């Protein structure tokens, strides 16, 4: 019974306002009160400190990552959002970037997207050092970001949204839009991504959440990117739509893109990614090959449970207050 509960991935909110899994609470209690149960043996092999696993596993040895970041640090005033973080994603690979709120996921993504350049550190794109100073630079380098709000124009149709800001024009009269050409390319892109949309001429407002997400991703694909960053692509989606988007992410991998997925939903992460990189308090605390790990271990790395840090962070009350 306890074992069953302990492996659940449900999150509980404690008095300090942070979210923990049942397991992490259990672990912190155990650390504090030196509890020993018959679960101990089970725990011991499922949760080992993951710090030692920070080498990229499951990658062809010697391959150059599509995108590599080294020693990234960033501070906001006195707050050190990222300290000495390394990050890499290979072509044809999906990397899940996970971590608790405030772990530095968004900050790291923003340094890649050029929205908030890092204070220190180097970025290499296909082995070449690059300086991503602005979103425009990122776009030019082939790094595309799909933000959580998707940034679609609800009143425009799928074709118009895909080509927004980069419309194609007729060769004869350059002032006029070439709707035929744009629609053709749209259908082609949607087909390569295996996205089904009833009509590419319906306003985006009438599409489902999954179709909207797909539209936003398809738009980035039109620019032939090298790296695609997806911020919470399955948040606020239903079961079927989530499936649709996960399929889409697999398609991106098949296209040979390097894909980075930020997600809070570990179930989704485990379904689609190849590697999980865990950030915690601005540091990279773990890297897991999805084939050889379990959600429990990732959660433990996210919450820092195996170090008993909940107790430290929660010094003023009993952590098991629920």
């Amino acid at each position: 019974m306890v074992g069953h509960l302990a492996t659940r991935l449900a999150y509980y909110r404690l008095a300090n306002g942070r979210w923990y899994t049942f397991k992490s609470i259990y672990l912190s209690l155990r650390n504090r009160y030196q509890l020993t149960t018959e679960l101990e043996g089970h725990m011991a092999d499922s949760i080992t400190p993951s710090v030692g696993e920070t080498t990229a596993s499951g990658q062809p040895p010697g391959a150059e990552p599509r995108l590599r970041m080294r020693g990234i640090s960033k501070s906001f005033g006195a707050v050190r959002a990222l300290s000495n973080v390394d990050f890499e994603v290979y072509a044809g690979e999906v990397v899940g970037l996970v971590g608790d709120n405030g772990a530095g996921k968004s900050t790291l993504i923003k340094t890649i997207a050029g929205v908030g350049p890092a204070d220190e550190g180097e970025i290499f794109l296909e082995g070449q050092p690059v300086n991503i100073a602005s979103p425009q630079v990122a776009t030019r380098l082939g790094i595309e970001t799909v933000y959580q709000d998707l940034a679609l124009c609800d009143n425009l149709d799928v074709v118009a949204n895909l080509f927004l800001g980069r419309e194609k024009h007729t060769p004869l009269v350059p002032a006029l839009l070439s709707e035929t050409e744009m629609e053709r390319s749209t259908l082609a892109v949607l087909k390569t991504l295996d996205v089904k949309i009833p009509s590419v001429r319906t306003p985006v407002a009438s599409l489902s959440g999954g179709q909207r997400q797909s539209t936003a991703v398809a738009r980035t694909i039109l620019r032939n990117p090298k790296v695609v960053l997806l911020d919470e692509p399955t948040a606020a989606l239903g079961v079927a739509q989530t499936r649709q988007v996960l399929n889409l992410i697999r398609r991106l991998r098949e296209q040979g893109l390097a894909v980075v997925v930020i997600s809070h939903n570990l179930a989704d992460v485990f379904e689609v990614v190849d590697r999980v990189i865990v950030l915690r308090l601005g540091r990279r605390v773990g890297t897991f090959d999805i084939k050889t790990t379990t959600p429990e271990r990732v959660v433990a790395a996210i919450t820092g449970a195996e170090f008993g840090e909940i107790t430290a962070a929660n010094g003023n009350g009993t952590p098991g207050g629920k």
Partner: protein
Amino acid sequence: MGDIIDKDQTSSSAQLADQSADSAAVEVATAAAVPRPTIGQLLSTELSFVPVLLTLVVIMIFFAVSTNGVFLEARNLSNLVQQIAVIGVVGLGVILVLLLGEIDLSVASVSTFCAVVMGILTERLGAPGGFAIIAALLTGALVGFINGIFIAVLRVPSFIVTLAASIGYAGLLLYLLGFQSTLIVRDPLIVSIAGSATSFLPDYLGIGLPTLALLLYVGWLIIHRLRRRRAGLRTVPILQLVGQIAIAVVLVEGAVTLFESYNGVPNSTAILFGLIVLLWLVATRTSFGRHIYAVGGNAEAARRAGINVVGIRLVAFTLCSMIAALGGVLAASRGLAVESQINPTLLLQAIAAAVIGGVSLFGGRGTVWAIVLGALIIGSLENGLDLKSQGTDVKQMVEGVVLLAAVTIDALVRRFQARSGR
């Protein structure tokens, strides 16, 4: 680095072209499986003009019956379209701004102000009419540009900026006119636009221009269909295409026949429809038009897509005031004078015509053709109530109700779409 990327893109776009050939075939095959949109969906998108059209028909039937057919006589309908020309033109400018989700409350004031500039140039300073008209239009553009600077660059709400402009230019035109409250316009060119018995297109133009436009439209429809077919895209059923062409032919040639049976096609009507067609092409077939809709739909998304949102707003406000100036020229020509008194209903009627026609006050939704139905409804009410010898009191009450109804429907449709959206 740039070279590498460019090469990369061309090679992958070549791939894309290969893929699209396959996808085209698939698309044709699956076309039949696509669910047809429901009536409700159609009503909120392509057929959104139907309720408005029905309203217009009801109004017209009501006045036709209650005036014993006088309302539908060619003479009265010719009058009607001349009466709505100014509302229509000014309303077209307003549509550009409404599509952005902004508003321009200064159009009536600006149009009168620009007409005053024109009148003073010709009547007091003896400038030629053509020069004065161009000066009026440029004045309008300048006024709109200044509005736009405050709205787009300084991000002051357009409501306030244009309200201030409205008051300011009303004062400025009083200052320019000085002691005069009415300045008679005698310049032959200006008068000939809409203010004389000869302000009608000669028959060869009155019949020729609309027919030419019609032929171009039909030709374009057919070429467009062929091109889509060749690209393997879904095409409209041939029956629907024929129906579309038939409706266009009947509407255009019917209107031309009607006008020709009286005095011909009024110049002002030709100007109005020429402007509609021009703006329609700009709004639907150019990047600029597409970007106007994008900014009105989601300004942040447009900005992230690399669209110059500030520039689009600036140009839209400039065009709006410039078109308002054109409306002022028409009004001065038709009234044979410029007056210090700004037409008190023009502002509301221009905005009302746009909104009644289906342009959303919230931005991003509506077409420039909306102005035709909207202005016809407003004009029919005005004209019909005049025929029935009703005073301003009744007219204003009725127009108020109609405007309120239109805005309410707009808000409800928007809510319905938001609910059915996700």
